[in-house]
């Protein structure tokens, strides 16, 4: 199966969200292939439908001053933090063609992350009661999804070299006693987003049995402009 990958760079949460909604509709109508968005967000806290505001440990004023945005979002899961240095992946995948098994899909996403971490000699594992990827009790990747008409959106966030101090603004996933970690923190050395992205793509392709293709300029406007990119 084909999967088109778009590297969006640093993009605001709201912009990425609207793009996802658009892509989801197109995927439901089979107008596009399975799509994978890879990006980073500026400092942002997101709270899922069942998330509790009590898990945000800073006041509104403190967040505004620190330049951290806060959104309520329509995905599963509680509170999570996004920021530069964290690889965010939003796969827009048609689960109708993958056996309509949303649980397996979550397992598959965790598998992609676990294998990627393995490349860095980091042994990670799942928590049977709680989706996400953990290393020795600390969360290294958070997962939160929405499935609409059997097409997925939202996805996961893998901490590569993100500033872990920022996680003190929240109780990650609602746990006050669980901390976050990152690849760089575990290895005690800087790891680049490019390296992590490269490995992640390879494992994504493996686990989802997908042929990955580079997409281009998805944020540009009309289809005519896209055609021109090929012509000139």
């Amino acid at each position, binding site marked *: 199966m084909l999967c088109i990958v778009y590297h969006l760079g640093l993009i605001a*949460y*709201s*912009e990425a*969200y*609207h793009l996802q909604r658009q892509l989801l509709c197109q995927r439901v109508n089979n107008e596009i292939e399975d799509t994978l968005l890879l990006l980073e967000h500026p400092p942002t806290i997101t709270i*899922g*439908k*069942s998330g*509790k*505001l*009590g*898990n*945000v*440990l800073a*006041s*509104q004023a403190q*967040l*505004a001053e620190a330049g951290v*945005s*806060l*959104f*309520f*979002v*329509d*995905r*599963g*899961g509680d509170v999570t933090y996004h920021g530069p240095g964290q690889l965010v992946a939003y796969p827009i995948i048609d689960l109708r063609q993958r056996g*309509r*098994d*949303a*649980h*397996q*899909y*979550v397992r598959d996403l965790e598998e992609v992350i676990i294998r990627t971490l393995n490349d860095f000699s980091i042994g990670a594992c799942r928590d049977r*009661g*709680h*989706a996400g990827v953990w290393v020795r009790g600390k969360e290294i990747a958070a*997962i939160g*999804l*929405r*499935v*609409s*008409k059997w097409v997925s959106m939202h996805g996961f966030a893998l901490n590569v070299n993100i500033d872990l101090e920022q996680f003190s603004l929240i109780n990650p996933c*609602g*746990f*006050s*006693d669980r901390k976050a970690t990152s690849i760089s923190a575990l290895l005690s050395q800087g790891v680049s987003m490019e390296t992590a992205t490269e490995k992640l793509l390879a494992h994504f392709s493996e686990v989802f049995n997908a042929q990955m293709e580079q997409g281009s*300029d998805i*944020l*540009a*406007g*009309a289809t*005519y*402009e*896209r*055609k*021109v*990119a090929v*012509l*000139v």
Partner: protein
Amino acid sequence: MAVQILMPKLGMSTAPLTLVEWKAKEGEPVEKGNIVLVVETEKIRHDIEAEVSGFLHILVKEGQEVPIATVVGLIAATKEELEALKKERPKEAGTAAEVKEVPPAEAAQVEAAPPPVAEAKAKERILISPVARKLAEEHTIDITTITGTGPGGRIVREDIEKAVEAKKKVGVEKKVEAAPEVYQGRRVKSTIPLKGMRKVIAEHMHRSLSISAQLTVMGEIDMTEMVKLRQSLVSQEEALGTRITYTDLFVFVAAKLLREYPIVNASLIDNEIKVWESINIGVATALEEGLIVPVVKDADKKSLVEISKTVRSLVQKAREGKLMPDEATGGTFTITNLGALGGGYRFETVIINQPEAAILGTGGITDRAVVRDGQIVIRPIMTYYFTYDHRVFTGAVAAKFMASATQLMENPGPLLG
């Protein structure tokens, strides 16, 4: 017969799901295909569509943890049926034995270890009403940009509504971060993102200049004879079936010359100069949003009339955004007639359209004073700018090519023969 709404199986797992939200209220009409219910399990929010249209009768309330295949609601076909159902299966009951009431706080961690006590008592430092929260989510509003006007700075519905209105006024959501007012000593008027066609042109032009050794030969052509020729062709417009333009004539002339100077109709690709058999001449066309170069294929095999009709059709398609990919690729030489842009007598440099080896730019035709046989006379003069890639051929070749072009246009007899 009322249609049942069942708790769905989302895969191989048989664990119970949390009924998070009914998208319609008790008794409200629902439409087939619209989302009627949202359930959640281990980090997945799953939307469920209504299988038929009708009136919703809710059996299980929001916030409950429900096993798979439980009947959580019914869609009645008519209002009468709805009333009958209400009497027979009141909302509170449901399949009471199996349904466990779970307080919303724990709904998200249904399968996990019980959350630590500290969490349940966590103090909320950000105050927002449930209605405002729902609205904020719907419109993807960044809460940190809102000032709460409720008690204790609580964010209420009106605050979000105001923000939504403000967002609408700004128009299409901003794709660009707000430009700084001053950038290194300069005040910013506006910021235009480099995207789409603009970005493509920018990259193409820059690349062209950086990979080739471009020089431009400039000069003038006495267009007296060409003006006469064109006028006579224009007067035959009906008979020819097309109005001949100068651009058509330039394509026609270039096609003839390229046969005589094949090295000008070539491309340097991977350390080899490919001399093309095809003579495909591109006609640079200005568009509102930039520029595009549709190509007249095999221009040397076409008559002037055929060239004219082809150019017209291509330019029309380009302006309407209907060019096919193969209509703007495969060029071996380009003509850019800048005369139409006005501005009088001038010279400019033009950039090669990669991977070609040369491009001919022409300016407007203006009356100039020139010397003929020791006398000052007035002639219609056109400027030209011929940019070529010195990696493919030398200045001597360029000079000869343009000398031939000038000669042919000042004495167009051979053109018509």
